[in-house]
């Protein structure tokens, strides 16, 4: 069961929710044997912050690289086939010279494939790193970190997901993904393949605007979704009205409370600040499972 925690608007509380959901699952139910902990993937490679709350000890590391084309000028005939096929204008033919713009390159390899002279070779260009290791309560933790100045998060996120499933050594079958803010390529890459999308929002016009976009992403990708309203009590009823109209269940409300803000600022998790949230997140998880099962029955 892969649960992606996303938002649309940044700063709504994705990491707050994701870390506490993971912790409450790792803690298990009272009077029940402790289940294997869920794996945690911090996919916000441009600004990972979940490590501040889950304190992982990194034991495994891997570079993230994309393949950038290199043109052998001696073999290049300036035919322009590579430039024609490149969707990103990262390789251009100007007169007799073929130029590569590595920061525009998405590493798809098309130019290398179509070159009729075999003049293009690929070399790896490091864009970041992947790290994994155990965190608190034995939660297998993995994250990606993009190098400063690199413009493309998506390849790092893709490689993180491929690598982390094997490197994290997770025995349990639940994976919590802390997704980057926004609704563009990095978010779609992080969310793709998830079984459920938890959308964290705040009840304000800004929160609503971006929640609508995030809900559209969920529909486009065919992933069932539910909403958590953080900072409940500020703003207006717009988000509630939207969720009701869109058929999005509001699974949890976290009130706007100074004690929570102070605790988060100190690096404490929500379940640490208010221990009653552990059972609230357990219940939330059961609701998610129920929703996913009933949808798969309805669809199947």
């Amino acid at each position, binding site marked *: 069961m892969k649960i992606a925690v996303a938002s649309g608007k940044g700063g709504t509380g994705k990491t707050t929710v994701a870390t506490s959901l993971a912790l409450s699952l790792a803690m298990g139910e009272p009077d029940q044997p402790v289940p294997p902990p869920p794996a945690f993937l911090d996919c916000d490679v441009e600004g990972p912050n979940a490590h501040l709350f889950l304190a992982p000890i990194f034991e495994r590391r891997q570079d993230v690289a994309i393949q950038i084309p290199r043109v052998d000028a001696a073999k290049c005939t300036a035919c322009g086939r590579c*430039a024609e096929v490149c969707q*990103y*204008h*990262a390789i*251009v*033919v*100007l*007169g007799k*010279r073929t*130029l590569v*713009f590595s*920061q*525009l390159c998405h590493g798809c390899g098309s130019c290398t494939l179509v070159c009729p002279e075999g003049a293009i070779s690929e070399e790896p260009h490091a864009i970041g790193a992947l790290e994994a290791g155990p965190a608190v309560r034995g939660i297998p933790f993995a994250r990606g970190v993009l190098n400063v*100045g690199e*413009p493309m998060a998506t390849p790092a996120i893709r490689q993180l997901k491929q690598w982390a499933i094997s490197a994290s050594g997770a025995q349990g079958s639940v994976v919590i993904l802390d997704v980057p803010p926004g609704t563009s390529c990095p978010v779609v890459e992080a969310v793709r393949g998830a079984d459920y999308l938890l959308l964290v929002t705040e009840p304000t016009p800004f929160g609503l605007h971006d929640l609508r976009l995030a809900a559209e992403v969920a529909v486009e990708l065919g992933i069932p979704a539910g909403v958590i309203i953080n900072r409940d009590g500020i703003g207006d009823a717009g988000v509630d009205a939207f969720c009701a109209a869109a058929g999005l269940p509001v699974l949890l409300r976290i009130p706007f409370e100074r004690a929570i803000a102070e605790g988060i600022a100190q690096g404490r998790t929500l379940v640490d600040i208010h221990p009653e949230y552990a059972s609230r997140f357990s219940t939330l998880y059961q609701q998610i499972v129920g929703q996913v099962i009933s949808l798969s029955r309805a669809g199947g």
Partner: protein
Amino acid sequence: MKVIVTATAPELEAEVDPRFGRGAYFVVVDTDTLKWQAHQNQGVNAAGGAGSQAAQFAAQQGVEAVISGDFGPNAYIALAAAEIKMYLLGPSKTVWEAVASFTAGKLEQVHAPTGTGHHGGREA
């Protein structure tokens, strides 16, 4: 020789467009015959690579110079590689004025990117 002036509309009397990579139209003008043709810029809404795409278009048109208001880092590198000279519009308001000022030698040539670029690239 042929030059390109970036314009907001496909006319010689059109107002110039200060952006190169994302200018609305490229007006190709032969300064010897004064024949001209306007081309819509396909890269206007590109997520990235507008500058490199525009430079490639200029090279394909066989122009010797481009006249615009702003050349980002990708456009600059590409145009320089194609040995196409870059000139700033200065006070020119229409395409026709820009061509006239260019022919009279009144336009300033640039030798470095004039801007930091937008989507798709880092600072040069």
